[in-house]
């Protein structure tokens, strides 16, 4: 029984709240660094939101069972967006082993199985069924009130996900409209007319899932739909959900409307939606059988805002530092999808991938390293880099490092110059921390996609406190290790290394 309920209430150096992918990765990475901690969760098993969602049971993040990279290697992680990242081979690439070949987007159960397998293989312990209810800030840290008792810690990691159904307040009658999470089984919409409020991924997912059932689907929101193949961001509607959009474009009966939804009211037969066109002005009315609010999610912060944790995005995300620490309450860190609140440089308007596993799994590892050093005095071993190997090392990272590809313009590989002139590999760091922070001379390499859709390496060089940007050329086959790139990088580093 004791094994089933580890971490009884009491004092711990650090407490993680949550048991989804972000919490599991953080616990794993902290353990590997020797940071003692407890993990508590109100769920009764690992995997967080993937125990239930996506609603139509298929993810939008790829895991390619077969790829040019060998499964289980670091480079393979770019082709496997869903497995958590492990130090030992047995902990890597868990998800593809459960996939049945129907799609390279894992099903929800396959994802859940992969996360459970990771937790079991890595021996991650969680006190399940323990609900975080309150937070108190004291001089020496925090006191968490839970259903099992009090937990005291000086460092807190909140990894509860953006999991709370959220509806905008400016639509009259929205409170009665079922949210995405309350969507019924597809067949219950048979031969019905459905209005979906929202044109992001959850809206398109619902519309796509209802195409075989509903007689008509109408998607409406004020902003024109943003599509991932145009924006180069997985934050926009993914291609695999776009069948409703094509249906609308071909006049097949589905409508994708740009309109401010003003009021939703019950009628004798269903619902009436009142809207006002934005791209094409004018009043619109839709009589439908069902309305679904695919209006997004918020973070269940409990009382953290009362402690001084500043939030934004309609109170849905916390303001964070480059290391995912609350910008206003030191000692409170965030993991998982909440880390999308640390926006980084957001070059060319492209957001990080921190809303999804393939982005936030790296944030968690970098954050764990930062916490270990900054709050527990645990110094990581840093490897030396020979001067003559530096160019090759950085270009290899630009070509294959999964952290740089999954978190473009957001995470970078850093090499620092020591006082004796030797070079040290600092590992993966937040790009923003390097370009805006202070420190010794150094160089980082990142991968970026610009407004022309060119993907290329970007170098940032710090010398005497000043950081300059150097963009290298792209490559059709995305291999930046050739003679041209070596010459470009050598030219940039020539002055820096002398």
């Amino acid at each position: 029984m004791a094994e089933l309920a580890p971490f009884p209430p009491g004092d711990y150096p650090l407490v993680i709240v949550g048991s989804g992918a972000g919490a599991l990765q953080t616990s794993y990475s902290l353990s590997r660094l020797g940071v003692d901690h407890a993990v508590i969760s109100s769920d009764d098993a690992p995997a967080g939101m993937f125990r239930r969602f996506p609603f139509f049971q298929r993810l939008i993040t790829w895991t390619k069972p077969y790829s040019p990279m060998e499964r289980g290697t670091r480079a393979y992680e770019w082709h496997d967006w869903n497995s958590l990242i492990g130090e030992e081979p047995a902990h890597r690439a868990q998800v593809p082993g459960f996939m049945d070949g129907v799609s390279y987007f894992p099903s929800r159960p396959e994802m859940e199985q992969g996360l459970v397998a990771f937790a079991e293989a890595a021996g991650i312990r969680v006190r399940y069924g323990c609900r975080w209810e309150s937070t108190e800030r004291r001089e020496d840290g925090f006191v968490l009130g839970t259903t099992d008792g009090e937990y005291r810690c000086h460092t807190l990691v909140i990894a509860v996900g953006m999991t709370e159904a959220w509806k905008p307040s400016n639509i009259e009658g929205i409170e009665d409209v079922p949210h995405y999470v309350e969507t019924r089984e597809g067949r219950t919409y048979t031969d019905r007319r459905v209005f979906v409020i929202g044109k992001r991924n959850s809206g398109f997912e619902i519309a796509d899932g209802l195409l075989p059932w509903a007689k008509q689907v109408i998607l409406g929101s004020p902003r024109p739909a943003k599509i991932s193949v145009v924006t180069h961001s997985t934050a926009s509607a993914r291609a695999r959900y776009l069948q409703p959009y094509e249906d609308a474009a071909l006049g097949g009966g589905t409508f994708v409307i740009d309109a401010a939804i003003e009021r939703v009211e019950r009628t004798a037969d269903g619902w009436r939606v009142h809207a006002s066109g934005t791209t094409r002005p004018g009043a619109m009315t839709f009589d439908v059988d069902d309305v679904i609010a695919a209006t997004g999610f918020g973070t269940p912060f409990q009382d953290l805002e009362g402690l001084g944790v500043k939030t934004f995005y309609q109170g849905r995300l916390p303001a964070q530092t480059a290391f995912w620490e609350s910008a206003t309450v030191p000692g409170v860190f965030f993991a998982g999808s909440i880390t999308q609140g640390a926006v980084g440089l957001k070059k060319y308007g492209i957001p990080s991938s921190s809303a999804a596993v393939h982005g936030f799994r790296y944030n968690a590892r970098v954050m764990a390293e930062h916490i270990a050093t900054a709050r527990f005095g645990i110094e990581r071993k840093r490897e030396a880099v020979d001067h003559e190997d530096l160019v090759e090392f950085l270009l290899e990272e630009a070509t294959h490092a999964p952290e740089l590809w999954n978190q473009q313009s957001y995470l970078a590989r850093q090499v620092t110059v020591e006082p004796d002139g030797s070079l040290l590999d600092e590992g993966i760091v937040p790009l923003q921390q390097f370009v805006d922070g202070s420190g010794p001379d150094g160089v980082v390499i990142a991968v970026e996609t610009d407004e022309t859709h060119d993907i290329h390496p970007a170098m940032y060089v710090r010398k005497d406190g000043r950081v300059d940007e150097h963009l290298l050329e792209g490559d059709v086959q995305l291999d930046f290790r050739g003679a041209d790139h070596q010459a470009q990088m050598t030219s940039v580093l020539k002055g820096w290394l002398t």
Partner: protein
Amino acid sequence: MDPRSAELDVIDTLAGLTLFSDLSRPQLEAVAHIFEEEVFPEGQRVIRQGFAGPGFYVILEGEASVRVDGEERATLGRGDFFGEVSILLGAHPIADVVAMRPLRCLMLAGSDLEGFLVGFPRVSYRLVQTMARRLQSATQWRS
């Protein structure tokens, strides 16, 4: 902030800014959805001198400092916007913009600015008007 009132807060704030003062309520809602809200802790750079790919920002709350090579040239506050010059000219920013205290902004990707200004001509007019005032001030300062 109560998240239930926050959505209205953004739209009401936009309605009070000169840049968006000619827009109807549905158009303001569209703007609130087209732009993305971002916050920056005190001291953080929002736009970086010499770095490619900046966005267009409108300040909702807080103050920012415009600095060239570290030297402050101007301060910006609620309703002010920045980033448009480098986007319109296709050049890298010639100044840093740094949050002087917690800064809350709406951000539009540089590549989306042209489409936005074409789609909202009254915003374009207000933007040009403000830029003309800035030019006038700069000219008076030089003479």
